[in-house]
């Protein structure tokens, strides 16, 4: 395997051919290569491309550079205040050592169904910006994941930034990661909800779900029960039921499919109630 450290984005793009892979934090790629899950002919190290490591507000959007790390998310006041589900997911992400290396783009590109950053990014309508020698393009995150560990990104394309809509003063949100231990654990279910409110009416509802299907996805059917409504018990119950219905989980070492499906409903209900400031149905 060949190793190449890119000094610029152009250099990285030029090197991205024939079985090459970009290396950001390496927290997915290195174990994948070491344990033979991935074969690559060339590793293109992009970790020194500081121009891709930033978190900023521009034109009413939050721009997150591809190489921003999970620790960077945690350190950002902007993320904490205007993307709090993402902030909370970063809190639950692995442990400090991994968070220091793990990049936002790497998390999405790995395309694990349980990628922790995917549900909150989906819930804030993330757009993924890509570049290759052919030019630039942008892809909504909701069209990014195609199938289990498969994305719409072409092998020679580099993710440069992820752009999200900040939360406004009226907007409501919540995040939860169900896991089997308090750190360094893969999600059993991940839920992020964002409700864009306009005078008490839900103008837009987005629910991002993780670990309950082959890919992280938006629960469109559930969202439809909320959009345009004044959200109360009935809307929440219908949305929770629709979310559970939408899930296509698997049995694995962490949990059964039926538990995951059930939790999908429970947690969507719970996060919607939390977002709306309603009391929970059980003490939690």
């Amino acid at each position, binding site marked *: 395997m060949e190793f190449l450290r890119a000094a610029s984005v152009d250099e990285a793009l030029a090197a991205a051919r024939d079985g090459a892979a970009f290396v950001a934090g390496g927290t997915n790629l290195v174990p994948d290569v070491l344990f033979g899950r991935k074969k690559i002919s060339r590793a293109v190290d992009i970790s020194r491309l500081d121009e891709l490591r930033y978190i900023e507000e521009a034109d009413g959007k939050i721009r997150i550079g591809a190489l921003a790390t999970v620790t960077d998310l945690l350190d950002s006041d902007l993320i904490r205040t205007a993307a709090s589900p993402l902030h909370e997911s970063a809190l639950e992400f692995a442990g400090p050592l991994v968070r220091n290396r793990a990049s936002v783009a790497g998390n999405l590109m790995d395309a694990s169904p349980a990628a922790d950053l995917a549900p909150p990014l989906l819930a804030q309508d993330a757009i993924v910006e890509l570049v290759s020698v052919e030019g630039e393009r942008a892809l909504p995150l909701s069209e990014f994941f195609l199938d289990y560990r498969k994305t719409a990104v072409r092998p020679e394309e580099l993710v440069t930034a992820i752009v999200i809509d900040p939360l406004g003063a009226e907007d409501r949100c919540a995040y939860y990661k*169900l896991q089997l231990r308090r750190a360094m654990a893969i999600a059993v279910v991940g839920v992020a909800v964002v409700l864009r409110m306009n005078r008490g009416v839900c103008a837009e509802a987005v629910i991002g779900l993780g670990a309950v299907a082959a890919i992280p996805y938006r629960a469109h059917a559930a969202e439809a029960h909320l959009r345009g409504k004044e959200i109360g018990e009935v809307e929440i119950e219908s949305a929770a039921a629709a979310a559970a219905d939408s899930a296509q989980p698997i049995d694995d*070492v962490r949990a059964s499919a039926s538990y995951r499906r059930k939790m999908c409903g429970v947690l969507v209900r719970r996060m919607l109630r939390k977002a709306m400031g309603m009391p929970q149905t059980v*003490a939690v």
Partner: protein
Amino acid sequence: MSTRVVGRPHPIIDAVEKVSGATVFINDLELPGALTGMALRSPHPHARILNLDTMDAERLPGVAVVLSKNNTPDAPFGINHKDEAAFCREKVRYVGDEVAAVAAVDEETAREALSLIRVEYEVLPTVADPFAAQEPDAPLVHDSVAGNIANEFHIKRGGIDEAFHAADATFADEFHTHLAHQAYIEPTGCAAQWHPDGKISVWGCLQSVFLIRTFMLGPVMGMSADDFRVTQTKPGGAFGGKLDVKAALMAAMLSRAAEKPVKFMMSLEEDLIAMRPRMPVHISLESAWKRDGTLAGKRVRIVAENGAYSSLSPAIMSSIALRTDNLYKTPAAEIQGKLVYTNIIPSGQMRGFGNVQATYAWESHLDNVADGLGLDPADLRLKNYTEKGDVSLHGWKIASCAVADATRHVVREMDWKAKRARGGEGRGVGLASCIHVSGNKGFSVELGPDDTDPSSGVVRVDEEGKVEIWSGESDLGQGATSVMAYIASEVMGIPVDRFKVPPTDTGYMPFGMGAFASRITLIGGNAVKIAAEDARRNLLDAAAEFMEIPADELEIVEGDVRAKALPERKMTVGEVVSRTGSVIEGNGKWLAGGDVLDKEKYGNPSTTYSFSTHGAEVEVDMETGVVTVLQVCCGHDPGRVINRLGAEGQVEGGVVQGMSFAMMEGLAPLEGHLRGRNFHDYLIATSMDAPPIEHDFFESMDPYGPYGAKGLAEVAINPITAAICNAVYHATGGARIRTLPVSPERVLEAIEEARNQNTS
């Protein structure tokens, strides 16, 4: 008795060496010219080997030897049953079974050589379930063992049928435990060096350097125990898993065949799939009671999962079967045990030696009983605990016991009565107790030289006044060497920082059985204490001559020998030794008390017994089943604390390790394949999961222990699982966890089951 060292907090004596990175672990050991050893392991749970061709591997440049059934003798070994071979012969019996091994110049070559070994398998049906395995038409794991039954026993004592007839109330339950690993951080490895005189040196993190020669290396290699010099390397964790280390055999066999040193280091995955994890067991319990909460008798039926080979499993099953009967005054018992072969990784011993499983089941059952009788679970226990002076129905002699004090401590510190009065709303408290041996005579017969469970020590003082202790007992990181240093320091009046305890080495150290059954503080500690007394006497005798003062008028204080009456007349210990022109030595040997059990498993297996009670407070999310342990409170009776820091470490480590076992661990076999094959899928608790732990020691001052001490390692882990399960039961208003681990999913099922029962 007032003490200078004993009972105080000290860092372990090799702490600086360890935290500064100077410690040489097995992986750091460099043997000039060493080859890399590696094993080819079975990918199938059960298959017949039709053909095994190693020719291409042997021809690969850089490969020194390839060993397999083709070129090694059929020499079955095993502690209880000779059912295991160095390399699979006609069949493979679990995923991970050793089929062949290579020694090559480096890891890459060794790996390539493994890939060149061609094995033709005929895949056979897998025997994965221990109940299905007993069916008449079940495939056989060992063709000669009918019904897949490795061991079986049935004991009846004390008029059990009458006890059940006369009882005011009876209760029945079933519990199931899971396959969990010791999950030590240091992967297993051994190095071996063949010498031209035919002898072999072996190094590794081993719990018993002496015994591995007699139960494994010697018989399989057709050599005598003395042909091996086994040296313990500093431990990176063991927890029971490094008693039975086949890597030592692999390294030694490869080294002999290659006539070169060989290092055989296992990967983490190999450790998880091919060592000897904690035995899973299925326990049915029935108990008979008087209305006032007096235990009248119990019936226990056990089906224990042996896995593919037996190793120490028959003894573990026996421990599961009998142990808890001795914690309470049990007038009658009937016990049936069956140990069943399956095509899963052979199960084995881990901290608790079956008692974690047994205590989980019995102590969970007790809370169901308390509920049924309308009694407080703490009161029920306090009413029935064994006491000092008791002889249990199985013949156990209780020489010291402070379990009731430990329980009262937990009740007081947890605000038990007030918290018990609430419950059912997602928050609750539970407690559980245990009894444990300090050494076990049974092992001495099965593994040791005779039935004495012996230990020896040598204490050597040099001309600088520094002291070295040689003990045959291994330190596994539990602080055994430190305990020995404190005991000897107390006896000799020489400061602790002058003591050194080198790793155990059969080449020059006296015999010890090794680290298991919580035996080292009691048995090894006594041996070292006797040796230290001997060394002190020799020191004083020598000083008496030089100082012209009778020995009985001398004392040793802070490393100086001085006249009791005239403290300014003194010599340093180093000066005394210098003037003798040699070293001053002391020797000690101690034989454990107790008996070897008879055929009916009657007798007193240990010199004395330790006790503990753990209490847990939990919060249960009633919709997701997620359990959070809010706090743990415990009391332990280790006889006497030798090193307070070390003892606290044992307790805190035991509690977190036990909680981890209870709540998240598991190799999770599915049709003979393990799913928890790495620390990504096999979860162990992190510091984030560790609850606050409040605890205290209740020192029963054991009459046999060195300064009154007995074992602590295993009582520190045994009860926590049941304490958590009982707290969950209380918190949820009746969700009883009958199958481990206490996963959110399982808890939710139990909550639903309890809800259905309450409404029906």
